[in-house]
């Protein structure tokens, strides 16, 4: 501020001096062009443009090389013979595996996330220590590295929960039934990871519901819990859906947490039960780009797989953004 104001005073001073010398009326409007401001504005604009250009290059590159690889056979076919064979390999098992783990994850994460959001918006005191701790935990959970979730899934879900279930249910079975990498443990690990996404989105939606609705319900004699179940939650449904979709789009592309908890390098069959391993789109991208015997030959299916994964996550993201925009419009209408 000081430099700006000083600059201004200096300019005014010059103007006054020149007025004395030339006997003209001092001109206080700063006509001279501010080159520094112009250059810096341009630089920040260029930085923004650069980011957008990088985004365009990434998406364009993938779309351009990926599109020719997409065919009905590629999307619906399996990998019975050779997953690196460009003419025969399909990615249906991976699409199936990714969908299965993501749907299972939604079943685990939505109830817990919604109930937590209900507590945080409807019951908790904003200032109480326990609320602060819960909020801190939610924020921190969002920042835990995905590979640590993988370790956690291996140590807790597979080693502790699965191993414990084996000891209880199948004490004389030498081969582990539950205590190994499986679809259910991968989904649960992802559910823990995406919990903050669901909580934050649901909370936002519940806060957007006008207080009048709750008051009307309470005034009619409904209890607090009835109000929440019959008034607040139905109205927050689009927000809950947004949270679920965002969680799904986040989880669909994650590979690190499922590396040790369920993803398989190759499987001849589709997973049949919760304790089976599965093939996964993201993991398949990793396998194709690092383990391929001939990267130049397998490049088309690699790009094809990436394109399918990207379209899947972006489509989900897009739906979530649309629903969220609608909610925000409603909020503005309700509060405005």
């Amino acid at each position, binding site marked *: 501020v000081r430099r700006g104001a000083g600059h201004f005073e200096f300019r005014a001073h010059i103007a006054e001096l020149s007025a004395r010398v030339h006997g003209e009326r001092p001109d206080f409007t700063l006509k001279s062009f501010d080159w520094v401001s112009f250059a810096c504005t341009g630089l920040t604009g260029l930085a923004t443009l650069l980011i957008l250009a990088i985004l365009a290059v990434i998406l364009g590159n993938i779309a351009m090389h990926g599109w020719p690889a997409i065919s009905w056979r590629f999307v619906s076919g399996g990998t019975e013979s050779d997953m690196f064979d460009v003419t025969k390999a399909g990615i249906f098992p991976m699409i199936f595996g990714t969908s299965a783990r993501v749907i299972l994850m939604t079943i685990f994460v939505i109830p817990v996330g919604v109930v937590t959001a209900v507590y945080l918006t409807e019951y908790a005191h904003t200032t109480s220590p326990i609320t602060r701790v*819960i909020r801190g935990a939610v924020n921190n959970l969002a920042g835990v590295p995905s590979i*640590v979730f*993988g370790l956690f899934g291996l140590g807790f879900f597979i080693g502790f929960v699965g191993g414990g279930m084996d000891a209880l249910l199948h004490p004389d079975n030498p081969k582990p039934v539950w205590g190994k990498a499986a679809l259910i443990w991968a989904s649960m690990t992802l559910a823990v990871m995406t919990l903050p996404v669901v909580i934050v989105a649901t909370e936002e939606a519940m806060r957007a519901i006008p207080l009048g609705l709750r008051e009307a319900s309470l005034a009619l004699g409904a209890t607090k819990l009835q109000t929440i179940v019959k008034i607040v939650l139905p109205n927050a449904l689009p927000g809950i859906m947004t949270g679920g979709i965002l969680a799904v789009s986040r989880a669909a592309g994650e590979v690190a947490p499922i590396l040790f908890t369920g993803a398989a390098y190759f499987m001849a069959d589709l997973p049949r039960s919760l304790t089976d391993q599965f093939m996964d789109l993201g993991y398949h991208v990793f396998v194709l780009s690092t383990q391929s015997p001939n990267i130049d030959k397998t490049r088309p299916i690699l790009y094809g797989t990436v394109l399918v*994964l990207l379209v899947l996550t972006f489509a989900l993201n897009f739906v979530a953004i649309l629903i969220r925009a609608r909610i925000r419009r409603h909020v503005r209408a309700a509060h405005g």
Partner: protein
Amino acid sequence: MPHRQQLGRRSEGWMGLERGYRARPGEWIAEKLIFLVSLTAMVMIFLIFVFVTREALPILLGRMSSAAALETAVISPSRMDTLSPEALRQYLGLTPAEFAGKDRETLELLMELKEEIAAEAPEDKDATVNTAAWRYLLFPHRWTGYDHPVCIWQPVSAIHKYNIVPLIVGSLKTTVVALLFAVPLALAAALYVSQLSSPRLKEWIKPAIELLAGIPSVVLGFFGLIVLATVLQNVFGYASRLNAFVAGIALGLASLPVIFSIAEDALTSVPRTYTEAALALGSSRWRAAWQVVLPAAVPGVFAAVALGFGRAIGETMVVLMASGNASILSWNLFDSTRTITATIAAELAETVFGGHHYRLLFLLGAVLFAVTFLANLAGDLVIQRLKKRLEGKRA
């Protein structure tokens, strides 16, 4: 929530749930359950901490030996009868219960097995050394065949070399490159979008940059490996195609949207009156943004960088695919590099469950968890204080 008080609620006791269980027992139970479920996030953080460090505990406490050979002299099975049962038990490393459950033949077999292991062990001055001790994890050591002390991570060899320094340096290298690339770009873009651009342009740019956040990290890793590595090598002409520089740039793309959106929020939440006052004093839009709004948003910008750091150092797939994965200790950006996260991802599947290599990878995970936890905590505290300050100003 400011309108909370208007509701005219009854005074509520512990956790806001004290409403008398006699009046509506069903609802009382349901509300207690809601409270318990809402603790899940907290419990999960706690469990992550417990279960990751639990596996690493024997290493942390120095109770695990990764020596390739036995320190005690080998006793031939034919001399079994000369040993007292207690000495035999200690020699075989069995608990009394285990020892009691084994017959003579099994014990003889165990002794033979022990003899065989000793015969196969490499003849090396380091063979009897516990390489998982803290001394070897953190400090250079002169291994057989080296003419000076070195830091090496080489878990799958006759002598397990577990020095974690090269991995930490690798993680720092890629993270620093990522931040050097992402922070200026993201901050400049945040400044432009929140202060300088027209509102209509902002409506297009913001979702586009958020789209970048929606790209899965495995796709960014793929892009770094297939496209970026080749392009950057052609431009800069260094020797190794995959290195810390390529991985850092790809990593920067992953942390850029995080930094951008938090910094943009912080800049937008600076009261509009600040800018208006500066403009009224004759400042240009840029000077108002740079000299008034940015200083006011410094805590938020700091939080953005802290969270971006957490994202970059914890990112796995990008570095696993684009960094080259050679665990050499080197500060050169253009050398092939291996990070903490990539090491865990690449090696855990091949370790023995419960072995020293397995536990060391969990130790790395615990270190990573601690580092990101602190970065997040710092960022979070700053954001909370910022919010409080801004709310205080508005009231």
